[in-house]
């Protein structure tokens, strides 16, 4: 496991270094290749085709969501809309139906916000303190619990879902947002604790020792020294959690009542509902709306996202 994280830092460092080398090598490097060699055409050709393949679904989504239903029935899905309409977007947001409720995806969106924000904050707060205790204040047995936690990250969620349902029911919070937030905190803990532990362990130990000599305690060192020094890792954790929790489906459907369903669950219910005429344009608009938040995070965060998901991929 530590390998995976070590490996992230390789991913982080290797790329800029290679670039730096290229810049430094400048004119002294190998002789410049012709831009249009057969080899280059092949490489760029393949990459462009691949890139088009990856972009195609996004393109089709956007195009479909901007067409009216008559045009969808007649035309082909790759054609741009003849007549652009934003009607499907409005409908998806404000009046698409799931079962008896016809207030659109906006409810799911706000539910997801109310789930994602506290879950992210709570899980990061707990995991960062945990990681800090593991890295700097080792006590007997700590490693054992940590090992169980990490091994637990590989256990399929299905195995642990029902016992959690029982625990939450006993506590009287099964079906509520609080319950779901606790669940997200629990399942975010292995990867986040690992992330923070490895990060804090990588900070120079002298700092910690100096603070100890000056009489600083557990919390003082955490808030005054560790926290200000580790903002990047907090951002990585935040990206990881926001996208992960926003995209969650299983926990949402298991641990909440319909009025609290997160956006992904509501989206699935809208699109895959069997009643009524299928409105593909509304469905696609709804799909884009649901994907918009993680996509936004992705495009804004760039390299940090890569680091976050490389760590988060362990979570599966």
């Amino acid at each position, binding site marked *: 496991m530590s390998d995976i994280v070590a490996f992230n830092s390789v991913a982080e460092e290797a790329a800029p270094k290679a670039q730096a080398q290229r810049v430094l090598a400048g004119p002294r490097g190998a002789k410049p290749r012709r831009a249009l060699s057969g080899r280059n055409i092949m490489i760029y050709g393949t990459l462009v085709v691949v890139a088009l393949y990856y972009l195609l679904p996004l393109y089709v989504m956007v195009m479909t969501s901007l067409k009216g239903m008559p045009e969808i029935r007649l035309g082909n899905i790759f054609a741009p809309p003849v007549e652009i309409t934003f009607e499907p977007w409005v409908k998806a947001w404000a009046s698409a139906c799931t079962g008896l409720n016809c207030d659109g995806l906006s409810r799911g969106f706000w539910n997801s916000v109310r789930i994602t924000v506290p879950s992210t904050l709570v899980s990061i707060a707990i995991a960062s303190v945990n990681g800090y205790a593991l890295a700097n204040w080792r006590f007997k047995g700590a490693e054992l619990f940590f090992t169980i936690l990490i091994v637990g990250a590989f256990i399929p969620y299905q195995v642990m879902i029902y016992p959690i349902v029982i625990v939450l029911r006993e506590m009287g919070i099964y079906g509520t947002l609080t319950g779901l937030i606790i669940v997200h905190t629990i399942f975010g803990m292995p990867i986040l604790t690992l992330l923070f532990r490895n990060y804090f362990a990588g900070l120079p130990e002298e700092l910690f020792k100096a603070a100890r000599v000056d009489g600083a305690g557990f919390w003082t060192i955490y808030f005054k020294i560790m926290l200000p020094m580790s903002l990047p890792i907090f951002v990585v954790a935040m990206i990881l959690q926001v996208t992960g929790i926003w995209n969650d489906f299983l926990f949402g459907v298991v641990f909440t009542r319909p009025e609290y369903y997160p956006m992904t669950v509501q989206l699935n219910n809208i699109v895959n509902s069997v009643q009524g005429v299928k409105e593909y344009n509304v469905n696609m608009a709804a799909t884009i709306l649901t*994907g918009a938040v993680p*996509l936004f995070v*992705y495009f804004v965060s760039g390299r940090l996202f890569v680091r976050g998901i490389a760590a988060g991929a362990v979570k599966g």
Partner: protein
Amino acid sequence: MAGHTQSSGRPNQWLRNLNAKIASVPMILTAVVIFLGGTIWTVVYSFTNSKLLPRLTFVGFDQYERLWDAPRWLVSVQNLAIYGIFSLIFSLVIGFVLAALMDQKIRFENTFRTIMLYPFALSFIVTGLVWQWLLNPEFGIQSVVRSLGWETFTFDPLYNADIVIYGILIAALWQGTGLVMCLMLAGLRGIDEDIWKAARVDGIPMWKTYIFVIIPMMRGVFITTLVIIASGIVKVYDLVVAQTSGGPGIASEVPAKYVYDYMFQAQNLGQGFAASTMMLITVAIIIVPWAYLEFGGGRKRV
């Protein structure tokens, strides 16, 4: 905190480092109560005949016998096997080839990577719904090709029970290969330039260098990637729910969906527990050898 009781000696041993212990309470609770306790609980109850509510009436391996007699479970396992094998092979091969292409000191590397990785930011639900639309025989790719003049063209994986799992595979690969590419690219970047120079001096063709020199050197990266993909495969659920809801019929059922349906819809908890225990065993078969190789064996790393 069972681990500390035996550590006597000085009287204030317990209070030493108290803050760290308090801070670790959530971790300890999660590890012991939820992960360890929950898993044991589920395994134990998989030997009972729990229906609507969990009950401790043991029936031996009854649930497992019923499980392996159920056509739906067999279809699920078969689907998972097909999906797993192909998604492992394809994502490793595609991911590696893309990474190798990206490693040719190309321009616009960042643009290409951004494009290949963005699907990974999307949820399985979104992925599944987009591909459901693209593979829709009435309006999607099939209808477009037909309208171009090829009237008999058939491409309707989601509506054909024999190949529906491949339709899901297409969506999964679209979503996941970008990540594999990124992991592989990081591995390639970690390889010393000098290896390439030596290979070039010796006149070894590039593809040979990749297969016989570079790939063996990237063993660690491959294994890590393999474990990441494999543990994701076992959990596949949302994608199937969004794309086909298990249909047509039961043709695209997967174990994770079987578990959910029996626990929360069919009110047959025992079956759900037995099925989820089988999932646990599958994961253990993947993880244990890896953990042994990685962390056992005298801690030598490649």
